[in-house]
């Protein structure tokens, strides 16, 4: 019995160029076994390229990467025994049924036919696809394809799972389901790399978040530490009557201890904890101000970059 501690992954100084485009410009990433690494960044930051290098689909031009201690270039065959990939572009076959897709993967992983069918049915059931099992994937909705894709990745019980923007195109209920699945996998000792464009998702799932931009890791830390740098949560209030805006700005500045910004009809102020929420609500009630929107938010990706790139500039 091998211990799960052997199955993390690490990458040092990965460089990958496509013609004149530098997709990865010296990327370091690592996740100890049984943890979730969130890779956060905008489109074109190099997230998918990094995943493809770790999944043995691309050779890096420089640097090295290892999964479970095996080099992804020299020992690709060993790495492939440990990993599974659920891509941004669902890696399932449109022309086959959902069941046939999963059975195919099982058979290629050397399960006997009956075992492959049983495993396929179990996963179809788990991902709520039993009714669609006999239909061609071409007839599936986007969300169903993503779920089938994830199911296909789990057929072989991988030790390391690469999820490339798994929540893109999922509606909120399905996204919660995906999040539960990822947490359960981590609890089972699976190491997960998850790319995302949403700090909220990285915050919800990742033990460590690497923020990438233009092929470089601009920050790598726990979600909590990252939120401290980027200002944590934001309280946003939209008064029902726009003429109340100055009064709301005033009271938000008082309870948060910082000046509030006005964005459209909305007032936003960075806050350090959710205790401010109650103070703000009480202050609004005392003044009889009704609100159309009242929310505690994590910073958007834009705000994260603004804060991080600003801070790295200051550091330099």
């Amino acid at each position, binding site marked *: 019995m091998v211990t799960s501690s052997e199955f993390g992954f690490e990458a040092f100084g990965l460089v990958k160029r496509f013609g004149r485009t530098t997709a990865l410009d010296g990327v370091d990433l690592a996740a100890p076994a049984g943890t979730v690494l969130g890779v956060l960044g905008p489109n074109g930051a190099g997230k998918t390229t990094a995943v493809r290098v770790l999944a043995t*689909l691309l050779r890096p031009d420089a640097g090295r990467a290892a999964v479970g201690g095996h080099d992804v270039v020299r020992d690709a065959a060993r790495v492939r025994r440990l990993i599974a990939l659920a891509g941004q572009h669902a890696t399932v076959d449109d022309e086959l049924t959902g069941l046939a897709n999963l059975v195919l993967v099982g058979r290629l992983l050397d399960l006997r036919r009956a075992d492959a069918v049983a495993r396929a049915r179990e996963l179809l059931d788990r991902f709520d696809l039993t009714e669609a099992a006999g239909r061609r994937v071409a007839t599936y909705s986007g969300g169903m394809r993503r779920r089938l894709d994830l199911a296909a990745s789990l057929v072989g019980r991988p030790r390391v799972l690469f999820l490339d923007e798994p929540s893109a195109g999922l509606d909120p209920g399905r996204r919660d389901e995906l999040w539960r699945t990822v947490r359960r996998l981590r609890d089972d000792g699976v190491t997960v790399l998850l790319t995302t464009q949403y700090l909220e998702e990285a915050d919800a799932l990742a033990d460590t978040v690497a923020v990438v931009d233009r092929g470089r890791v601009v920050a790598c830390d726990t979600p909590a530490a990252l939120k401290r740098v980027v200002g944590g949560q934001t309280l946003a209030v939209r008064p029902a009557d726009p003429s109340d805006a100055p009064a709301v700005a005033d009271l938000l500045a008082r309870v948060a201890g910082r000046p509030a910004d006005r964005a459209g009809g909305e007032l936003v102020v960075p806050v350090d904890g959710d205790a401010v929420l109650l103070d703000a609500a009480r202050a609004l009630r005392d003044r009889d101000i009704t609100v159309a929107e009242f929310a505690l938010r994590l910073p958007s990706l834009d705000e994260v970059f603004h804060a991080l790139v600003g801070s790295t500039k200051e550091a330099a």
Partner: protein
Amino acid sequence: MTTLARHGWVLAGRSLAKSARNPGPAVNAIVTPTLFLVLFLYLFGGAVSGSTGDYLQYLFPGILVMGAGLAGLLSTGAGLAADLRNGVTDRLRSMPIARVAPLLGSVLADVARYLVAVAALFAVASLLGFRPQGGPVAALAAAGLAVTFGFALSWVAVWIGALARNESAVLAFSFIALLPLQLGTSLAAPVATLPGWLGAWAGVNPVTHAMDACRALLAGAPAAAPVTATLLWSAGLVAVFCPLAVLAYTREG
């Protein structure tokens, strides 16, 4: 090796399942040689052999080689090119299976389709009056040889598909390349009767050897030389194009 064979077989099953859902190309690969058989037989039979009955004995072996490979090549390469742009290839390439397994699957599925085509062509020909003079064993040998040659040609098609990664480019290229391969042969008339330049091409064209070999086997005539030439060509094609196809398939893109 047994693992590779099993993976190849599983992936061939995938390809055949797709064929069953979308039988157009496979049916086409039977209809095309059948059309050639009927057209050539009634257009040229009288002129070339004096009677359609005699001409059928000459023509059918060439049509058999066409059915066992050549007619199906268009869809093989195009199918693989489509696969490469499909996300499934990413999954296959990240799995612990041999790089050659998906290509082997594609080629094995071709062989299964060729076997069906060969059986269909034998049935059509016998309805038209064809009788293998060499007997049933020689007929089976001819069918086996034609399919073996088709298997070898499939590796060329797979290489083209993996290289081009574009269905319409593959179709256009294969269509142009196939015409001289199929028709610049002893298919419709003996090589000796062809004009010099065409005869020279037909003489070196491996498809001619395969057709001559099948013709000799089916007629019960001495067949050792063309059969040997066909088997050597088949081995050579696989030896060259199988590694090239794997290289093209594993190329990043």
